[in-house]
């Protein structure tokens, strides 16, 4: 009886497990195996041992893409967290029109990156773009957004952050709703300033939501692709060729499936390590109440 009771949940997991094994785990194993093959899609795969792993070390483009990806993660993730909290707090405190403001800030999340990239390209143009037009009011000279390495990375990060903030805002809004009002009342009675209330009550109580957003957005930004592919195609030069655009280019432009699979495995391990590190460190700063 006890054994049956223990087995019951596993039995109910069988359908999901089958789908996971068939459509996730098995392709992962195949991808791992593909790292030891040379395959251009047009001929049968040829076993080459560790040739692709040697190429990963010898070719400079992998290290460069890792660097570009790191820059994007370091710029985008903190921005999304800070902006997400700021917008959530503002929307939470607004008296009327809360649903309207929530919709406005969430709208970019549901917009297609492909469609939005056309708008972004026009906005980032050096001579006729609207961003440089507004910068001109502050006497800031035209920025070569999409034509310079620094500008292009900034443009990609801005595009990505703009689309991701709405999602984070919703998560933080939900977190804010869960903070007991008694805490704020006590702080008020004790004469706490708004900044003290924010840093000593709101932020710590939001730490579980912050942790969740950190993990999700770190994984998302490590895998950034659509925003780069549609806005800069990895350029100018290789300035925005992050890991996934590199994998895409290696597979579908250079027809080198084995090397692309190798890059994918490394990216997978990298994401796993970063996520595990975040999980490990959460004990130090995430407060579950």
């Amino acid at each position, binding site marked *: 009886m006890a054994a*049956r009771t223990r087995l019951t949940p596993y039995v109910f997991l069988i359908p999901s497990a089958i789908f996971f094994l068939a459509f996730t785990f098995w392709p992962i194993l195949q991808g791992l195996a593909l790292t030891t093959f040379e395959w251009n899609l047009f001929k049968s795969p040829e076993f080459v041992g560790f040739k692709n792993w040697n190429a990963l070390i010898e070719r400079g483009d992998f290290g460069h893409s890792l660097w570009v990806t790191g820059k994007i993660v370091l710029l985008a993730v903190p921005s999304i967290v800070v902006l997400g909290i700021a917008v959530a707090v503002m929307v939470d405190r607004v008296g009327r029109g809360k649903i309207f403001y929530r919709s406005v800030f969430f709208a970019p999340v549901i917009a297609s990156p492909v469609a939005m990239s056309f708008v972004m390209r026009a906005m980032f*143009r050096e*001579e006729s773009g609207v961003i440089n037009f507004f910068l001109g009011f502050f006497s800031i000279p035209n920025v070569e957004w999409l034509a310079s390495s620094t500008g292009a990375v900034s443009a990609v990060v801005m595009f990505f952050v703009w689309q991701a903030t709405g999602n984070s805002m919703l998560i933080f809004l939900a977190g804010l709703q869960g903070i007991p009002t008694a805490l704020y009342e006590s702080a008020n009675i004790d004469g706490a300033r708004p900044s003290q209330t924010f840093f000593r009550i709101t932020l710590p109580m939001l730490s579980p939501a912050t942790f969740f957003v950190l993990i999700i957005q770190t994984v998302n930004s490590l895998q950034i692709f659509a925003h780069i592919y549609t806005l800069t195609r990895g350029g100018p030069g290789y300035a925005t060729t992050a890991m996934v655009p590199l994998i895409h280019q290696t597979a579908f432009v*250079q*027809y080198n499936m084995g090397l692309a699979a190798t890059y994918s495995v490394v990216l997978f391990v990298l994401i796993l390590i970063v996520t595990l590190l975040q999980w490990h460190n959460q004990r130090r700063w995430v407060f579950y109440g």
Partner: protein
Amino acid sequence: MAERKQIQMFLVTCLVLLTLAGGTLFGGGSAESDEEPTIRFAVAMDPARLKLYEAAVEEFNASDRGFTVVLENTPWSEYWQKLQTQTASGTMPDVWNYVPGFGQEWLENGLLLPIDQYVEASDMDLADFIPGMLDFMRYEGNLYGLPYDMSGHILFFNKELFDQAGLDYPTEEWTFADVRAAAETIVSEVESVEGERVYGFGNYMNSSWSSAGYYKSFGGDFVTPDLEVEIDSQGSIDALQYFVDLRNDGLAPPPTEAGIGDTAGGQFITWLTGRSAMILDGPWAIPTYVDTVEFDFDVVPVPAGPAQRAPSLLGGTFVIDKDTDYPQEAFEFLAFITSESQLETIVAESGAGIPGRQSAFDKMTPLMEKAANYIMQTNQAFYPVRGSFAIFDKQNSEFELIFNGEKSVEEGLTAVAAFARNVVRENYGE
């Protein structure tokens, strides 16, 4: 006991659902054996041209030939990736849109059906097709496809800016030196258009198939028929340096407004807004410019370089998948879609481009016919190799660095040439 029954019911339900799902996934295809054959026809057309192909397919299907054609359209930017995926999964369309260079892997890996026997058995006159385009589709003595259009670059010029600068219009004898001289005069004589600065030249040489022609014009080349990579030769460096100098001397706009990185027909903003006097573009852009720009323009051949006048010839063809279940039907449709009447309607009359058959030329607009004659007279086929796609992509990245001033022309083209040699070696051996 009750719990055990519940578990048993649950397991049985799961097994039934899985069986049904498996039947749907793996057994669905077998029911079509009694139905009319279907030919899948894949294209990568913009919405305006797609409507013409839809009408052509509808007309073909209405003629009741004993089989049906189904049109599949994919945007150009995703088309080749989709074909790669379909190749890997063995689900290639029966007839599909092929472009020399881009599709070289399919041609040289034996994935296309040779059509010689079908052509011989039919009454098709191959002499009517553009010879250069047919040459692209010949490989190891066999013919693998038929062209539906032909294209290449021509020089577009803004008549109004030339008038304002007091210059004579470009002629068929112009050289790149004449282009530069005119650009300098226009920039110095014409202050602005609607308050925005003016450029003598609106774009640069781009990094795809057309680059071979510009390299040749200055004495270089892309990859020769002997598989020698000439991208880093002095002639090729001189060609690219010419365009870099236009940019650096303020005669051409910044890279993002000159369509750098885009394939031909990119966003030449300064041309579209009447602020550039000249651009290099293809006849495919004529209908858009006729509809969009608010100034008077005309075309002449691509100017000659110091070595020769050799702009690249390219175009679109249709081919048949080697593993099609219905080769005869596929050829029948191929012959129909590349017939004189269809190319007159789809390509010539619509202004979509230059038809792949010479007999359809007289249905073109006067400007398109002019462009067609220039291209026929001056353009040369470039030599497509396996891996051209990857080399163009590498070249594109290096061009961006060069035009942004982050690399010299020599450094950039040296990097491209090294990459290209590696690609050629991997594909063709030492």
